[in-house]
């Protein structure tokens, strides 16, 4: 497998890798480093990649494991909490500020979820993988994935309702 073949296989999902890394590591710089590191790893094991049917799922699993390692390692202990700038969708001007606020809240709420729910909601609701793939990526049973996802969705929604009712937003 030469370089151009390799890139053809792995480049399409680089953004997904990056976003998952960012979801777990929070800071953009950390996520960029993680993505870069992951591609080194993939390149080093390029002989094996040719045999994999689903390189993308394999890469996502690697990303997940790598980010866990990073989180555990001392190096990452001084992670800074950097919040990204979201591109705004076109909405009517008067609602924009309030809207943006609530959309950002979702980010914070996902941040507070347990690690596995965070990954699953990222993979499903952001990246839109189907359940079989997610099961492979996170190495969990389908029912467990569904339970985690359902919990994550409910938690986010309930938290949003709570905030709005109390007018905290």
């Amino acid at each position: 497998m030469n370089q151009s073949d390799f890139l053809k296989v792995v480049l399409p999902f680089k953004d997904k890798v990056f976003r998952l890394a960012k979801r777990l590591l929070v800071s953009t710089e950390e996520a960029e480093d993680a993505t870069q590191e992951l591609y080194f790893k993939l390149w080093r094991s390029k002989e094996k990649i040719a045999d994999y049917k689903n390189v993308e799922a394999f890469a996502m699993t690697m990303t997940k494991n790598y980010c866990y390692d990073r989180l555990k390692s001392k190096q990452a202990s001084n992670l800074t909490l950097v919040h990204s700038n979201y591109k705004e969708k076109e909405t009517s001007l008067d609602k924009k500020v309030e809207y943006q606020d609530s959309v950002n809240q979702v980010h914070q709420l996902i941040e507070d979820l347990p690690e596995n729910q965070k990954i699953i909601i990222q993979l499903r609701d952001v990246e839109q993988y189907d359940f079989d793939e997610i099961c492979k990526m996170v190495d969990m049973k389908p029912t467990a994935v569904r339970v985690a996802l359902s919990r994550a969705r409910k938690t986010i929604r309930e938290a949003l309702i709570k905030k709005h009712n109390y007018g905290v937003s």
Partner: protein
Amino acid sequence: MELANIEKLVEKYENATTTLQEETTLRNYFTEGNVAPHLQEYAYMFNYFTTTKDETFTKTIKLEPKKSKKSNLKWLSVAASIALLFSVFIGKQIHDNNQRKEAERIYAQVSKGLELLSTNLKKGEQAVATLYTYENKVNNVLK
């Protein structure tokens, strides 16, 4: 899409039993605006999901990890060891040279001193010889 249908889908969505297609339907409904007030929270969620997906990895991916740095380090160490060896060699030579010069200087000094000693001794010998001749003459006279 009618509200009743959306509500049904939302219910399924909460239980994580929706298919990807159904989720796309929900996504379209909630991101287009005109959301029923009691479902507003979902609009935030789906909008967040879609905007997050816009984020991309903008840096270029390098496939050869810092290889140049590593090989540089290797060559640097080789160069350093050669330099060290060379300097030790040169240092030894200079040191030897210095020692030889020092020895020569000491040798010259010592031989000079010995020469002085020997000339003085010769003077003494001569004096002793004249003394002997005196003694002989005195003995002859006294006989």
